[in-house]
């Protein structure tokens, strides 16, 4: 049976491990940011072949699942909102509610969560496997910074592709919402568009796209960081993949909450 002293020791160990993880994350952030800056100053040094490869895996390969999830999300949102608003005869507000919610929150958030599952986990598994097979050691002993070689192409690819996926997700999500408006309320397309335009400002669309840039940074950073922190066996790769997804989603939701507050302050309460 565990004594109080054992519990204190266990919690102390956990605190030290957490401190190590935080220190490693900060150090990794610095390393990657320096490597990104180096890439901006010397674009020729970017591994363009890898960048194009990851653009393809993060972008076009993710379009079908993005479309599917976003459309269904729009449908579900519209159904739930329609049930509530119908009680108060506020059906005309529905396009605005759907548009604002999808463009400002759900679009970027859902696309980021899908990208975390697809790309963030793949980054962690790829780098973790490279660590086990000593490829990271090989890079270091060649005098090549792994962050520049492995993270920068992925980061640029995600920074380009996630906002594009978010734009697709926004439109498809709104289209899903319109399908419900059409089938449940018989709302014509021109009315839906007109009501949407009345209630949804361009700045909301820009807000969502800006959020997706932050999410892209978080997904790549977390996926690669967990990959670099992988232990030395196959089970460790599974663990780092799982932790990449869990930590990414946590950071994304945290960042979303902070950004929501920030944009609300920026716009004022009148929106």
């Amino acid at each position: 049976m565990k004594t109080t002293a054992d519990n204190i020791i266990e919690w102390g160990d956990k605190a030290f491990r957490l401190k190590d993880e935080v220190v490693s994350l900060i150090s990794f952030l610095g390393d990657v940011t320096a490597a990104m800056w180096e890439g901006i100053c010397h674009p020729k040094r970017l591994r363009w072949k890898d960048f194009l490869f990851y653009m393809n895996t993060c972008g076009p390969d993710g379009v079908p699942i993005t479309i599917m999830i976003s459309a269904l999300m729009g449908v579900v949102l519209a159904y739930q909102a329609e049930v509530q608003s119908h009680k108060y005869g506020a059906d005309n507000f529905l396009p605005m509610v759907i548009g604002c919610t999808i463009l400002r929150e759900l679009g970027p958030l859902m696309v980021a969560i899908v990208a975390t599952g697809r790309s963030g986990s793949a980054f962690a598994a790829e780098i973790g496997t490279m660590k086990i097979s000593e490829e990271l050691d090989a890079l270091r002993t060649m005098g090549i910074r792994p962050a520049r070689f492995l993270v920068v192409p992925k980061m640029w690819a995600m920074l380009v592709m996630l906002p594009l996926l978010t734009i697709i997700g926004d439109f498809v999500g709104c289209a899903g919402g319109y399908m419900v408006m059409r089938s449940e309320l018989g709302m014509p397309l021109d009315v839906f568009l007109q009501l949407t335009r009345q209630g949804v400002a361009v700045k909301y669309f820009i807000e969502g796209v800006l959020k997706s840039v932050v999410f892209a940074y978080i997904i790549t950073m977390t996926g690669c960081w967990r990959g670099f922190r992988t232990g030395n066996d196959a089970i460790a790769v599974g663990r780092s993949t799982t932790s990449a997804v869990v930590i990414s989603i946590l950071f994304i939701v945290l960042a979303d909450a902070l950004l929501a507050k920030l944009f609300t302050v920026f716009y004022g309460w009148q929106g």
Partner: protein
Amino acid sequence: MTDNITAPANTTPSIEVRDLSIGYGSRVVLENLNFRIEPGQIVTILGGSGCGKSTLLKHIIGLYKPLRGDILINGRSIVTANEQEKRSIMSEFGVAYQGGALFRSLNLAENIALPMEELTNWKRDEIRKRASEKLALVHLDGFEQYMPSDLSGGMIKRAAFARALALDPKLLFFDEPSAGLDPLTSDMLDNVILEIREKTHATIMMVTHELPSIFRVSDRVIMLSAEKKGIVDDGSPAYLRDHSTDEYVRTFLSRGGTYKSNSTEPDHA
């Protein structure tokens, strides 16, 4: 300790280890190690499983920080160097890892070209030509476009040798070069190592416990012991097998039978 290797006077050693203690966290694996490896030698770090051979190698190539002491590569400390200096020191040596550590997304030519692309200003044609030359040196000419997944274990090891040679280093590290290979493939790799030394005059430090390979290629063996957490003997393989003052060393080296040593001198003295 049997110091039967004569060091040439007034030369900067390729590797110099001073009062080195290594370990993980508070656990000391090896302590107070002192040795020098002179240019042109083939030296094997030998010892039983778990004695810290690979850990020592990883410290020498700068992947881990030692608990105490210093490691000089061509006269420059890799322990106290900052990141930039460390990268500069690392670019002076080549490492072939146990599993090859080839990048699976790159073909053989791209794998070998990688350090040249990243660390030199050589033109693309020159890099391609040099990559082919390195592959030819390890008898893999014609395999430029092959992916690592298409190769056998022996071929992967040879490709790893070729990549280690990419920048024409004067110091090479081979981690378990013939581990897990059949005797004939091991024999071929030994020949490749001897050819590399003959053609490049590089210093080679190996970690292995393949006795036939050790006797075939090594000029000198540094024997480690997990029990003593340090070096138990140091000398030519044949000399240590026959004359070591430590019974463990004599038994270890005699275990595989009487192999003919690479050395032409009777006891390397």
